[in-house]
């Protein structure tokens, strides 16, 4: 380990700020579990039966469900709760980050100078930051991933890091697992002879998910890219303080500066839904190019339309597209993912996808059984299970 300060610990909410954060965390739990269940009850007992009576059939698409639900008070109230909780998540951590910013910036500089883990940070002021980042604050996070308010800024990285912990504070994956750990452990069980030596994470933000992957496959030469400099500075400081050697660089995933055939493993997490279909095609082609033959690209996302339990689940999963400044979610979820990989150069037979429970929430035996296909994992929602998709080169 190192003796530099961990930037994550430069975070000291007042008594009342901590109370406000905890309120938002519990509110989020209520919204995604209890009130989501109540909304489904109203749908099952009133909305769907009325539709069936009027149309002689159940709704076939998420859009048909949505049309019924838009005028329904419970949907309006649930949506207002969810939208406001999202905004309050960021607001609840901003004041203390403003207070601590000078210290955070110094800690990040010290981490970079001392460089105990041996990683690196390469920034590029000329990187092409996509309009999807500059014109829309993703997840309603004011300032998004890239805004810099002062020299050597790390604020947006800190807001993202601490905000997402508040965001999931009331849910299962807050304490154990998360996608990185879940996917990497699933790969470990599914492909026991796969031993990646070189690794790239796309859209790494503050690095948390890639660190979990690195823990399952130690000793990889690891790279993380993102367009947001404040996130990369924060990620570098976090990596160095926790003994993880990562080379961070500011790049747009559509045009990577790595040579062909460089990486055994390429990952992304909740990344593709934030990008247009056209842009994601370019990114997949780049991923194919930099993957070594025999390498694997694996990504995590909400499952596509073809894989959900029905139109109601579709309607729920599309919420972010309409209200969370994630306009590409709808398009993303309506794609044929396997075809997308084939268009990028991968072979159809090498496409993989799986849904497994959050690692650590249930027993290791159940986890392994789900990976092998001997047991059925819970539906993907609220951190109970994760959907992964990708392909071998």
């Amino acid at each position, binding site marked *: 380990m190192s003796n530099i300060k961990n930037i994550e610990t430069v975070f000291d909410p007042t008594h009342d700020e901590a109370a406000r954060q905890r309120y938002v965390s519990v509110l989020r739990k209520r919204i995604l579990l209890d009130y989501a269940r109540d909304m489904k009850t109203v749908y099952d007992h009133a909305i769907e039966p009325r539709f069936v009576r009027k149309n002689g059939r159940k709704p076939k698409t998420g859009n048909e469900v949505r049309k*019924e639900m838009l005028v329904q008070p419970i949907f309006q109230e649930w949506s207002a709760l969810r939208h406001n909780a999202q905004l309050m998540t960021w607001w609840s951590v901003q004041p203390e980050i403003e207070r601590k*910013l000078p210290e955070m910036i110094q800690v990040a500089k010290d981490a970079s100078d001392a460089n105990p883990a041996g990683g690196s940070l390469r920034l590029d002021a000329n990187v092409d930051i996509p309009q999807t980042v500059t014109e829309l604050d993703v997840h309603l996070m*004011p300032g998004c991933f890239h805004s810099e308010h002062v020299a050597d800024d790390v604020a947006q990285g800190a807001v993202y890091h601490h905000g997402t912990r508040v965001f999931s504070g009331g849910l299962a994956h807050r304490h154990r697992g998360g996608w990185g750990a879940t996917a990497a452990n699933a790969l470990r069980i599914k492909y026991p002879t796969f031993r990646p030596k070189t690794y790239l994470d796309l859209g790494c933000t503050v690095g948390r998910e890639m660190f979990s992957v690195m823990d399952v496959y130690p000793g990889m030469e690891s790279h993380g890219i993102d367009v947001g400099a404040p996130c990369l500075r924060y990620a570098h400081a976090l990596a160095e303080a926790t003994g993880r050697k990562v080379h961070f660089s500011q790049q747009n995933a559509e045009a990577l500066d790595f040579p062909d055939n460089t990486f055994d493993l390429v990952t992304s997490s909740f990344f593709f839904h934030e990008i247009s279909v056209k842009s994601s095609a370019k990114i997949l082609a780049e991923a194919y190019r930099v993957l070594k033959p025999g390498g694997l690209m694996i990504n995590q996302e909400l499952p596509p339309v073809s894989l959900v339990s029905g139109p109601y689940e579709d309607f729920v999963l599309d919420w972010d597209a309409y209200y969370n400044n994630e306009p590409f979610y709808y398009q993303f979820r309506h794609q044929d993912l396997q075809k997308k990989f084939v268009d990028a150069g991968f072979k159809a037979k090498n496409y993989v996808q799986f849904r497994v429970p959050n690692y650590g929430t249930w027993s290791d035996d159940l986890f392994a059984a789900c990976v092998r296909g001997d047991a059925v994992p819970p539906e993907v929602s609220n951190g109970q299970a994760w959907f992964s998709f990708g392909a071998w080169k």
Partner: protein
Amino acid sequence: MAQDVRLPRRSKGPKPQFFRDPAMDHMMAMIIALTGELSVAIERQDTLERLLEARRVVPRQDIEAYRPDQTVEDQRFNRRDDLIARVFHVLHEQAELAEAMGTKGGLSYVADDRGAILGPSPERASRRKKAAKASSRSKARR
């Protein structure tokens, strides 16, 4: 200077309107924030009470510096969850109403001019009242 940085509070992008009247969206935002402040106030009071129990005079810094242990944190989680459940009970109530409408003899409900289902229909309510009266009369006769 880094000390003077004020992070933006507004998020770029279209602002959604969930309700017919935009003032309703504003009121929801106020209620949700207000509930948060109430939660904060309750926690502050909780801290004060625990400290007052332990000693007769409580310095101000002690409230600021108080950090709950896991037992306290678990109790507070329940209290917080309970507060939210009470303030936003109207959501759960709609689920209860929907379940009560049921499928016995078909779906019978009241809807507004946009087709929003608001609850069981009055005829059904009065049929229930009649049934309840009849059953209490027969109980009295026994």
